[in-house]
């Protein structure tokens, strides 16, 4: 009898102890991490990691104020990165300057991950990887799983009458106005909430004609400002609001033209995905 008890205790101990050891090993797997954009750095921090270096735009992140600067997001400085002796560098999969740096780092045998987040699912999968490196399953739970649950909840509230409303999403900057298509993450949010994008093609052409907008006459118009906000607003006013056809649009006459906040719809929302969904939902169904 005593032998059995001792054996059981041993078995339990053998099961528990390795679990603790494994956690320790994983969390010390990367000690010197450099992120080459604010959004990606944010994700790493949310997963419980620490940063040794980040690009200039990421300095405003919490927990990044005394991190070394390695250049700008469009032009990171390879030398500055290498000085920090990184063992992991997180780059964007969408910038050519990052691709070049990644190639060089790969040649040097330094681990790199190229990140491209165009939907919540993308965010989820990268966060999962990051959380495995940092060993913080709890943070994954907090910043991904529970957020996904909130999002699903919001989506479940979408009234069936919502199916069928159309929208047009445009990104406005001082130099250029372009329509946002379904591969853009914000459009993914709107589509999840039961709306239909009037722009359905997938070509790279993105400068839309006023005539076409008038013909499509969307129910809602979303505006995302890019770059200098004042200048972007001016450009928007000039290009659209002051033109003759604008007042004729349904969305305008019903007051459903919404200028969206950057933190949810221009930059990747990261931990704020659910807030983004909520914001959009409120605008569409309760605004």
């Amino acid at each position: 009898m005593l032998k059995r008890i001792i054996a059981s205790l041993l078995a339990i101990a053998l099961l528990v102890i390795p679990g603790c050891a494994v956690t320790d090993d994983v969390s010390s797997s990367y000690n010197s991490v450099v992120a080459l954009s604010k959004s990606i750095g944010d994700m790493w921090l949310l997963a419980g990691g620490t940063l040794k270096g980040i690009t200039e735009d990421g300095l405003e992140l919490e927990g990044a104020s005394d991190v070394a600067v390695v250049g700008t997001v469009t032009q990171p400085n390879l030398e500055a990165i290498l000085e920090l002796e990184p063992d992991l560098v997180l780059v964007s999969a969408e910038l050519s300057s990052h691709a070049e740096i990644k190639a060089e780092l790969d040649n040097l045998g330094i681990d790199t991950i190229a990140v491209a987040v165009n939907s919540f699912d993308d965010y989820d999968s990268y966060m999962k990887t990051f959380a495995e490196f940092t060993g913080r399953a709890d943070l994954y739970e907090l910043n991904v799983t529970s957020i996904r649950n909130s999002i699903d909840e919001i989506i479940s509230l979408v009234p069936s009458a919502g199916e069928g409303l159309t929208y047009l999403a445009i990104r406005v900057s001082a130099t250029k106005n372009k329509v946002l298509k379904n591969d853009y993450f914000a459009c993914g949010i709107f589509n999840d909430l039961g709306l239909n994008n009037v722009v359905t093609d997938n070509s790279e052409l993105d400068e839309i004609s006023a005539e076409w907008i008038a013909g499509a006459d969307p129910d809602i118009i979303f505006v995302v400002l890019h770059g200098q906000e004042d200048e972007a607003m001016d450009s928007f006013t000039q290009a659209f609001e002051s033109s003759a056809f604008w007042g004729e649009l349904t969305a305008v006459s019903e007051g459903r033209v919404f200028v969206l906040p950057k933190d949810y719809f221009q930059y990747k929302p990261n931990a704020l995905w659910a807030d983004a969904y909520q914001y959009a939902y409120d605008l569409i169904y309760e605004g």
Partner: protein
Amino acid sequence: MKADGRRTVVIVGILSLIAAFLISLFIGNGTVGTGDLLQVLFGSSYSKSAYIILTRIRIPRTLAALLCGAALSSSGLVLQTVLDNPLASPGIIGINSGAGLFVLIAGIIFPFSAAARQLFSFAGAVVAVASVYLICKIAGFSKMTLVLTGVAISSLFTAGTNTITTFYPNAITDKAAFNLGGLSSVSLQGVLTALPCIVICLVIIFAKQGQIELLLLGDETASGLGVNPEHTRKVSLLISALLAGSAVSLCGLLGFVGLIVPNVIRRIRCEGLLYRLILCVIYGSLFLIICDVLSRLIFYPYEIPVGLILSALGAPFFIWILISRRKAVR
């Protein structure tokens, strides 16, 4: 200029070039300092990051500045001599816009590939020059025709570029860095690819400079001295294009070096194409290395576009030369 003076200018240039080369390799600004970098060559122990920075960044970059500076300024000098036009430069002949268009195409077919960019920009430069040459063969090689043809070809290629970016707006990101010009994304592989072409072309230019110089005397006199003017012009244009194309494929569009450096040298009372070529090679490299060092050190870790520094330093100097020469002639 007396022979002694000429020799002095060359010696001073070579010594300055060596000094600039060493500064570019070893001066450190961040956590990896000058001492750390020197340790790699001369010391017994050095940090891994110092080693990597020296071998993977400093050496390729400095070599690229050396090659591109020499290539662009000699290319500019040859073009100015062959076309007897001080406004001629790789940029005016359409090389820049040709390379730019092809870089854009490379960005679409082979996105993010530095090797494709390099090859395509080189091809674009040659295509542009060939177009200018063919048109001038029919329309004539006068100064005016040459410049106008270069403008026309540049417009054509730029229009092509603008058309493509309308259909593929995202391809422009690859090209933006190219337009600005700079040496931040130079790899040793890239340098080794461009090196043979640049060196061989420079050797050919030096071998042919005697013929090229005779073109200045007019086609008839040159023929009388045993030179075939058409053939010499064709070879010179091709070699200039290859030189500038190789440089542009490494460092992007740095128009200043090919236009202003040769003009400064032509104005400093130095006679003879051979001597001017030597000065272009030395001082063209020196100038680009210095500007590159400044571009990365002033606001480390942020880089200022090297084209900005080239103009900021070079343009006032050139203006000073113009003014002081004018006074001398009077």
